[in-house]
């Protein structure tokens, strides 16, 4: 019985965890319950992935109503991989959360904090697993609303304003998404993604369709912080509580990328409609600008959290670059980078969270001499940071390798530009990563901060899960690149 309902349990168990946490989460119980729920969801996502790998796409009909009439859950390779990322990050961060939340959030708020955390988690999962366009919007709002609140809990008052800005831009994004879905519904009469793609064929030159594409792409680009629409991101990441930053940086924008992939390829089938290719072409220059602008601004940051936030904007550029190539290799690169960037950013932000606690702040000066004082934390940080650059042996290398291959494979001038861009933006990454690492290992601590101690074992535990994954998935690419290949083939409609 459990196995036939796994797809539903993936979302519903975290969903029921939230009110249970409100009711019973006194003291440590809130944390324990959230840990149990996230680890259970992680186990479910693993078995979903195995099920997809063995027997193909899973369809689950909510309420027993068949697809276009009821809401359908659909797990294919792409969604299984993104589910694995979300549940993996959310569960691996829990040991770190134990201490970090205790330090950053007043005690009386813990119960509601973990409730909101579980709600964000539920929303992210729901967006990925659903096969219904409107249902995706509902879960998008669950995750966004709880994320706004979680960001606002940061210690600095700027967290409040950052959260409000995010609320405004996020709601504009979501409303654009609803307009887009509504226009598609108007010309097809259905909301189910697969049904939509079937009924849309032959209508690709309709003006309503084009407007719908525009609104969907702009709406989702706001959510994923595509370059000119990224304004909400740096402050949100910089001022949110550490645990929240980890979850959002590693998974929040990735889920928006997932939806963009879903809509561009599964619903709109851009690759099979030559007259729609301009949509993807438009992403190309934006991706390039994002890669460089994000990296260059990151170089000038004096706060590590903000530096990493701008680096996220740059990394989002890589992902969109892969998407804009609309080829199998390009998509593999994009999908692998969604996964890999999630893992490394989670590691980096956990490390920064530990540094904030133990070194008293996250500005670069605070890092002086930490290489000796917090050797394990800084070692893990460095591994993840090297991965951000794309050193061979780390996950960053794998995704950039696929992107460069895809770019050269295209054989066009554009592909050539893309390849050069990937390499040179990585050089910029070396600069901003080096600034941090240099201070940590080669600068002397300014004044008597001898009390700086190594992070607790719980934090180390979370941190090393991420940093060792950076190496493990960098050396053996079977899981990530293998699944990503199958996912890319499904998206492009090539039979695997």
């Amino acid at each position, binding site marked *: 019985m459990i196995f036939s309902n796994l797809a539903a349990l993936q979302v519903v168990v975290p*969903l029921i965890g*939230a*009110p249970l946490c*409100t009711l019973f989460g006194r003291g440590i119980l809130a944390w324990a319950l959230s840990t149990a729920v996230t680890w259970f969801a992680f186990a479910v996502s693993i078995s979903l992935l195995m099920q997809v790998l063995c027997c193909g796409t899973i369809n689950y009909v*909510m*309420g027993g*109503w068949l697809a*276009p*009439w*009821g*809401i359908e859950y659909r797990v294919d390779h792409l969604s299984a991989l993104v589910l694995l990322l979300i549940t993996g990050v959310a569960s691996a961060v829990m040991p770190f959360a134990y201490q970090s939340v205790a330090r950053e959030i*007043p005690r*009386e*708020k813990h119960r*509601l*904090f973990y*409730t*909101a955390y579980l*709600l964000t988690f*539920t929303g992210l999962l*729901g967006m990925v697993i659903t096969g*219904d366009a*409107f*249902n995706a919007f*509902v*879960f998008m*709002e*669950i995750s966004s*609303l*709880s994320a*706004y*609140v979680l960001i*606002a*809990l940061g210690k*600095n*008052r700027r967290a409040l304003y950052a959260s409000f800005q995010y609320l405004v831009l996020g709601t504009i994004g979501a409303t*654009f998404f609803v*307009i887009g879905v509504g*226009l598609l*519904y*108007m*010309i*097809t*009469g*259905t*909301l189910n993604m697969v049904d939509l793609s079937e*009924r849309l064929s032959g209508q690709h030159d*309709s*003006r*309503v369709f*084009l*407007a*719908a594409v*525009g*609104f969907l792409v702009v709406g989702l680009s706001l959510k994923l912080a595509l370059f000119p629409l990224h304004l909400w991101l740096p402050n949100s990441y910089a001022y949110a509580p550490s645990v929240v930053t980890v979850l959002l940086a590693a998974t929040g924008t990735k889920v928006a990328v997932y939806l963009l992939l879903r809509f561009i390829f599964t619903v709109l089938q851009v690759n099979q409609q030559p007259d729609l290719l301009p949509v993807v072409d438009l992403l190309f220059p934006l991706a390039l600008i994002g890669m460089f602008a994000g990296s260059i601004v990151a170089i000038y940051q004096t706060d590590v959290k903000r530096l990493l936030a701008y680096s996220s904007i740059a990394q989002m550029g890589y992902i969109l670059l892969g998407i804009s190539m609309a080829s199998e290799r390009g998509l593999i690169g994009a999908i692998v980078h969604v996964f890999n960037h999630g893992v490394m950013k989670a590691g980096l932000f956990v490390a920064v969270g530990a540094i904030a606690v133990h070194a008293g702040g996250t500005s670069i000066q605070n890092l002086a001499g930490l290489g000796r004082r917090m050797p394990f934390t800084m070692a893990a940080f460095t591994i993840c940071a090297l991965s951000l650059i794309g050193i061979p042996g780390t996950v960053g290398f794998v995704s950039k390798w696929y992107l460069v291959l895809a770019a050269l494979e295209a054989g066009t001038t554009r592909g050539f530009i893309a390849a050069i861009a990937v390499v040179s933006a990585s050089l910029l990454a070396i600069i901003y990563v080096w600034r941090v690492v240099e201070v940590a290992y080669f600068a002397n601590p300014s004044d008597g901060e001898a009390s700086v101690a190594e992070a607790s074992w719980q934090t180390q535990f979370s941190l090393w899960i991420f940093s060792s994954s950076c190496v493990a998935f960098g050396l053996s690419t079977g899981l990530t690149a293998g699944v990503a290949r199958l996912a890319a083939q499904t998206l492009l409609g090539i039979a695997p």
Partner: protein
Amino acid sequence: MIGIGLLLFLLLTATGILLVRNLFAVVILSGIYSLLMAGTFTILDAVDVAFTEAAVGAGISTVLLLAALGVVGQEDRGRNRRALIPIAVVVLAGVMLIYAVPEMPPFGSPEAPIHVHVAPQYIEETPSVIGIPNVVTAVLADYRGFDTLGEVTVIFTAGIGVLLLFAGRRRKYK
């Protein structure tokens, strides 16, 4: 006819919201806007939606906005900012939509795609399979019951969020 009148009043109210500086007046206008919207929904046969819009938009939202005004004051002192980018965004989005209007299925036509796919089965099936006359309730609570679960979760999230934002002592910021 009434419909067109209501739509014009909606435009008028929205313009009022845009121009009026006193926040109390803006909030009341937004309540009126919701009420007019509810009227329009009734004319368009969406009685359930009209009911909800009246209760939520004109009722609860206005109460909450007024309660918030009690804390933050009524004055909109803001100097308007450079309007170039906002105008560009709005014009761009508006043009994109207006461009699509001529090819939209004609208003009210029974042959529009949404009236021939998915929905007819709801209308036919509901009395026999679910056994209630209100098709909207049937779709809401049953066919798309999972959406409604999401909707309840959204409202739960809002409640938790507001409580979380105000829980505990008020913090002093530097």
